[in-house]
């Protein structure tokens, strides 16, 4: 049971967690839930990628993970921007009444 095998097993486990997160995407009543599952997906994906890369000594895995981490917030920003545009006001105003 060498270290690479352990890391590969951990990668499979994290991928399984990511798959479970997919179920929340299915059942998510609101779009915000789905975005959260995507965020967990992103982080889980980065973790699985790092485990895979270090275990199999794959090249440039850190750069791929760096790109993914950098753009992890991008989809959610697009969602927040589109959600705020179609629903008008900002909740900060509503909380002041």
């Amino acid at each position, binding site marked *: 049971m060498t270290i690479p095998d352990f890391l*590969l097993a951990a990668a499979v486990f994290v991928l399984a967690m990511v*798959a479970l997160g997919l179920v929340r995407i299915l059942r998510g009543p609101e779009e915000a839930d789905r975005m959260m599952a995507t965020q967990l*997906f*992103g982080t889980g*994906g980065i973790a699985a990628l790092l485990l895979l890369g270090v275990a199999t000594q794959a090249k440039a895995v850190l*750069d791929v993970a760096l790109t*993914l981490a950098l753009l992890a917030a991008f989809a959610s*920003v697009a969602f927040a921007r589109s959600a705020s545009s179609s629903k008008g006001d900002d909740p900060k105003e509503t909380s002041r009444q």
Partner: protein
Amino acid sequence: MTLALAVDISLALLVLAVAGWIIAVRDTFGAVIGFVAYGLLLALVWVRLAAPDVALTEAAIGGGLTGALLIGAAARLRGTEAAARAEYPGAFTRTLAAVLAVTVAAALAIGVLALPDPAPTLAPAAAAASLATTGVGNPVTAVLLAFRAMDTLLEAIVVLLALLGVWSLAPDRAWGGCPGPRRPVDPDGVLAYLAQLLPPIGIIVGLYIFWIGADLPGGKFQGATILAAMWLLVIWAGLADTPPIGRTWLRVLLVAGPLVFIAIGFAGAITAGAVLAYPEGYAKPLIVAIEIALMPTLVLTLALLVAGAPQRIPPQ
């Protein structure tokens, strides 16, 4: 190596599950969210297929730009959800489509299983033709800019034509205006905070990935995509505005990259005997020059493709 195979099988099943779900789910927004997750899983698959350059491209474009583009579109078209529900084809069409899809997939699967055993490869030819002469360490970059330079040149022009196509969809009153709606965003909000903190680091990472492209996996497409994403982040946070498409500096920069590429290509005809050939010993500097010239063009083009068609005239 059964454990590595276990990883591959679980990854492949996950990819197929997400793909099936993208098609089956009723709500378009859920499908687009699934597509973002699908892009991320594909980056993992490319790492497992030992293609780090492609993994980088997929992560940057699939995970970042395509997701943002589709989420924006899905949000804007949310109103059309109910109307389209009546147009679902009947059971007969669906079974026909299923039969066609299964036969196409089966044909491809048979093709995959029947691939010739001494796997045909162009690696030795590419190595001999481009790696030895150009001194570029990364074989994929060497192929992109030396062995198959024509593909990269045509691709840079195709991306530019796609941008022209998107711009030509502007309504007459907004011609020459700014793409994308301009929405007031509170300057001290979370989005503004992210747009002030992330881009400087993102620019450094983008330029780093662009620069190492010569010898390690990376390159101009991946670097340009990251820089384009950072620019979009600043625009969406309201800190900057999309430039009106009539600006001359914008149009000059958009055309500069391909023009430099074409110029160096035709100069090759004189000095090195063939179009897009590099004279002896000057290959690497010329390749780096082309990549530097293409960077601004790609950053502008990719970002403006996501920003979309012009919609409003900027206040003079």
